[in-house]
Every structure is written in C-alpha cells, then in structure tokens.
C-alpha cells in the first residue's frame, strides 16, 4: 500500500478520535477517501484484536488492603494533632483577643482613678468637710512664720496659765469631754483652750469672730498671732483660699495637708500636756469624713494617749481599739509617743 500523503495523514489522525464510534461503518460515518478509509479499517481491526487478546484484568482486593489501612491510620492520627493544634491555636487566639481589651480597660480605669482621686483634685476641695480643714490649715499650715503663730500663741497661753501642775497638766475638763481628769485645771484656762480649739478647728465655724474673741481673751499678748489668724481665717463658705493650702493629698499624714496640720497640732497640744485641747482636735479629725484612715487612726490614738494620761483607762482602751482597726500598725507610733513622753 502506498504511503499516505501528509494531508491524508492529518485527516487520518483527526479521525482517530472517533475511530471506535464508526467501527462497523455506520451510515453517518465520515466519508474519507479510499486510502484513509482503508487505513482506518486496518486500525479498527487492530483495536479489535487487542480488545480480545488483552481483556481487562482484575486486581486482587488484598493488593490494596494495606494502602487503605495506611490511609485510615494517617487520618486517625492527624485529627488529634489538628484538633490539639487548632484547640491550642483557638485558645491562644481567644486569650489574645481578650487580652487587649482587658488591658485597655485596665489602663483607662487607672487613668480615671488617678484623675478623680489625685491629691488636691477639685473633688476633694469641694467637699463640705474639707472646708473646716482648709480653714484649720489656713490657721496652721501656712508659711512658716504663720505656722508658728499657733505655737507662739500656745506658748503665750501657757505663760498666762496659772503655774500649777506644770506644763502639760490638764486643767478642768468640760462636760462634753467624756474624760475623767485626775488633776483639775483652772476652768478659765480650759475654756480658753476650748474656745481656741473651737475657733480654729470648729469645722464650719466661726472664724474671725471667734479668733477675735480668743484674741481678746489673750489680750494683746499675741497680736501677731491674731493678725495671722485674721489673715488666714476666712468665712466658712469660702473655699477659694483652699487653693492656697491645697496640696497633694498623701496617704500618710503630713503637715502639708489640712488634717495633717491638725494632727500635728493635736500632737503638740498633747505633748504639752494640754490634753483637753488635744482631744478636741483629735475628735474633730477623727470625725472628719475626708480624713484618711491613717489620719483617723492617729487621731484616735492621740485621744487614747490623752485619756491614758488622764487616767481614763476605759476611754483610752476604746480609742486604742478604734485606732488599731483603722491602722493595725498604730501601736508602733503609740509606743514611740509613750517613749517620747517618758523621757
């Protein structure tokens, strides 16, 4: 048979796609020239021979048993790892997801707390109770020269006191003070002390008038102190000057704070033996709502020491108990005060 032309070969190859479809020469089979048709018939014969001689053979089922078992084993091991890793990653993602908002909220809360409760913030200065403290602070916690005025006044008062019992011996205790006094003091001196304490530390009160009265009681002995009081005393409602004494509030008592100054005043009165006045000062601090816990503890402890000095053991024990509740470490301060007074 002569070789096919390139065109015939091309048509022959194109016809291979549907060779088996027209194996038996169906009517709708494509028409080819004789050479191509004859060759296609030869090809069909070959395909038929190979189909008969090479049937599809079956592979034994056990040939792939191990392969299937291997596939199952791989999947059995993999989900646990995937689940563990996915669970771990999910847990890590969830923890991270919650971490940032929590940190942000914590930071915002801290900022708010710092802003609200920072020392000397307007929130503190606007509270009514602080007005009295501010007034007391004006009287006591002002610049050095002014701060010495009360001391000078005290000294001068002491000079005016009748020399009986020495310094520190308490005078008569007014009825409102629930303390039993062993040694009596001149009633006038006690009253003077009360007036002085009330004028300076009466909370809402009386400023210039009381100061003036106390000044009158003292006569001209302390003009500078009077002037200092007048200069520093202000109406109760005036809290604008509070800014003068405004200072950062500290957790511990400090002379820079109104209550701290009052506390020091009380301590000095107590050490000087003027327990009645000191007790009044301490009582005022202890009952002051804005005073810190440590300050109130000191005030209670001061009252306890005063009562102890005056022999009022029950009263002393009561104040000591309150002080310890407010500040469990107050005993150390009490012991120091006792040691100091015993020297």
């Amino acid at each position, binding site marked *: 048979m002569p070789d096919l032309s390139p065109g015939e070969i091309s048509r022959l190859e194109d016809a*291979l796609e549907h060779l088996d479809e027209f194996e038996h020469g169906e009517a709708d089979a494509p028409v080819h020239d004789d050479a191509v048709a004859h060759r296609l018939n030869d090809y069909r014969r070959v395909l038929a021979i190979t189909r*008969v001689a090479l*049937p*599809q*053979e079956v592979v034994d089922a056990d040939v792939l048993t191990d392969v299937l078992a291997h*596939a*199952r084993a791989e999947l059995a091991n993999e989900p646990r790892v995937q689940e563990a890793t996915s669970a771990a990653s999910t847990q890590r993602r969830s923890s991270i997801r919650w971490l940032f908002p929590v940190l942000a909220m914590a930071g915002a809360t801290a900022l708010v707390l710092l802003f609200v409760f920072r020392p000397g913030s307007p929130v503190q200065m606007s509270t009514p109770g602080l007005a009295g403290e501010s007034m007391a602070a004006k009287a006591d916690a002002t610049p050095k020269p002014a701060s010495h005025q009360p001391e000078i006044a005290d000294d001068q008062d002491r000079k005016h006191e009748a020399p009986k019992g020495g310094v520190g011996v308490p005078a008569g205790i007014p009825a409102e003070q629930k303390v039993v006094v062993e040694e009596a003091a001149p009633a006038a001196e006690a009253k003077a002390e009360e007036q002085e304490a009330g004028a300076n530390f009466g909370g809402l009160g009386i400023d210039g008038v009381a100061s003036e009265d106390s000044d009158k009681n003292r006569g001209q002995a302390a003009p500078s102190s009077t002037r200092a009081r007048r200069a520093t005393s202000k109406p109760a409602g005036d809290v604008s000057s509070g800014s003068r004494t405004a200072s950062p509030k500290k957790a511990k008592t400090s002379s820079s704070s109104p209550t701290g100054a009052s506390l020091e005043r009380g301590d000095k009165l107590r050490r000087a033996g003027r327990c009645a006045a000191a007790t009044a000062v301490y009582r005022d601090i202890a009952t002051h709502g804005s005073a810190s816990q440590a300050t109130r503890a000191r005030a209670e402890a001061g009252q306890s020491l005063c009562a102890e000095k005056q022999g009022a053991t029950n009263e002393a024990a009561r104040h000591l108990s309150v002080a310890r509740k407010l500040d469990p470490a107050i005993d150390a301060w009490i012991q120091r005060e006792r040691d100091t007074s015993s020297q």
Partner: protein
Amino acid sequence: MRTTLELELPGAAGLRAALGWTHTGPRRPMTVEPSTLAADTRQKDDGPDDTELMVAYQRGDVAAFELLVRRHRYGLFNFLLRSVANRSRAEELLQDVFLRVVRARKRYEPRAKFSTWVYTIARNLCVDESRRRNQRREQSLEAPRGSSEDSGTSLRQRVPAPESLGIPPAEAEQIRSRVAAAVADLPSEQREVFLLRQMNGMSFGEIAAIVSAPENTVKSRMRYALEKLRTELADLDPRELAASTPDRRQHA
C-alpha cells in the same frame, strides 16, 4: 514530564519498605466482565465526581478515598500491567500509585482532573520502571537467547503464527501472548498513548495532559502505534480470535 509532586515523594520501594509490606508473589490472572468494570468505574452518573471525593478525603473522609480506589484500581492496574508486562510488578506499582495519593493528600489541588493526576503518577512510575530495566539490562522481547537456542531471534519471532500451525481455538492463549508482546514491544511513548486510549478509553486531550505533550503529538504517537501493530498482527483475524475465546466477551 514529571510532576514536582512525584519528585518530592520517596521512591516506591522505600515506601513499601517503610510500611513493612512484602509481595506475596505472582497471582493467577483474573478477568472480569466488562459490565463489572463499567460499574466499578462509574463516576459522575452515580455520586460525586473524583475531584469532590479527593477534596473530601483531603478533609479527612477516608470513605471518599476508598471510593476513589474502587473507581480507578482496575484501569490503573491494566495500564500498569500492559506497560510493564509483569503482573506482580504491576501490583506493586499500583500500591505505589495510591500510596503517593495518600502522601500527597494535603498538597492536592484540584487544578486538573483526578484521573489525569493519578494516571500521571502511574505513567511516571512506568517510566522509572523502564529506566531501571534498561539499566539492569533485563531480557526484552528483542534480546537474543542463549547460544544453545536460536540465536539472534526474538521471542516473538519464535512464536509461530497461528495459521502456520493450524492452531485451534484452544491455543488462543498463545495468540494473546503474541498480542501482548506486540504491545509491550511498542516504544514507551507510543505504548502509553495506546494503552491509555485503548485500555482506559481516555480522550486524546486527557492523554496529552498525562504525558505532557500536545494533542497532535499524542495523535501521531497513536497512529504510529497502530501502524506498528497493524504490521505485527496483520495475519490475525479478530473474529477468529474472538471465536476461539468463548469465555471472554468483547468490549462494547
């Protein structure tokens, strides 16, 4: 053209050794009715297609993998059997094909048909097998026998034509061996195209994707293969051959 997928995978022998598998020896050939094969290889008409099954297996559905094995095991086995002309070796290669599917499960991407992918694996394994045989210089159909026998003659040449011997139908087995030898004797490029077309019924376009050659090239290879077989088997009559094999049924 080899796929990078196969190049990354370990050798077939290494896979079987790692799994502790041993081959149990040659088995008796078994044939199957074409209807069974057809039922076994149904895809889209009954159930999900191969790509869906492979994706399901990728997600952990081992039943999907088992269905893929059932669908393609016969076609792959026959392709491998006719390519390497050794049943036991064909079974080993079949295991290797599916092992590579298992190992490549996570990296599978449905860019092409699953059959294209899996037959590419099989085809590459056959190429490797052919190279190993050439390196070992195994006896081929063209290799001459020892001196005591007819030297310079091939096995095919020594197998007489049925007509010359008046072979009864009972001797059809010998004819089948001749046909099988003729197919095995084809060049590897022509043989793989011929087998994929004839044994697996693939289109020339899919065959082109498997062998990584243009479709026209694939058609040419098919023509060359048919030409060679036409020459080798010119004396055979398919009707006589079919008549001599009453247990076998022709393909539809």
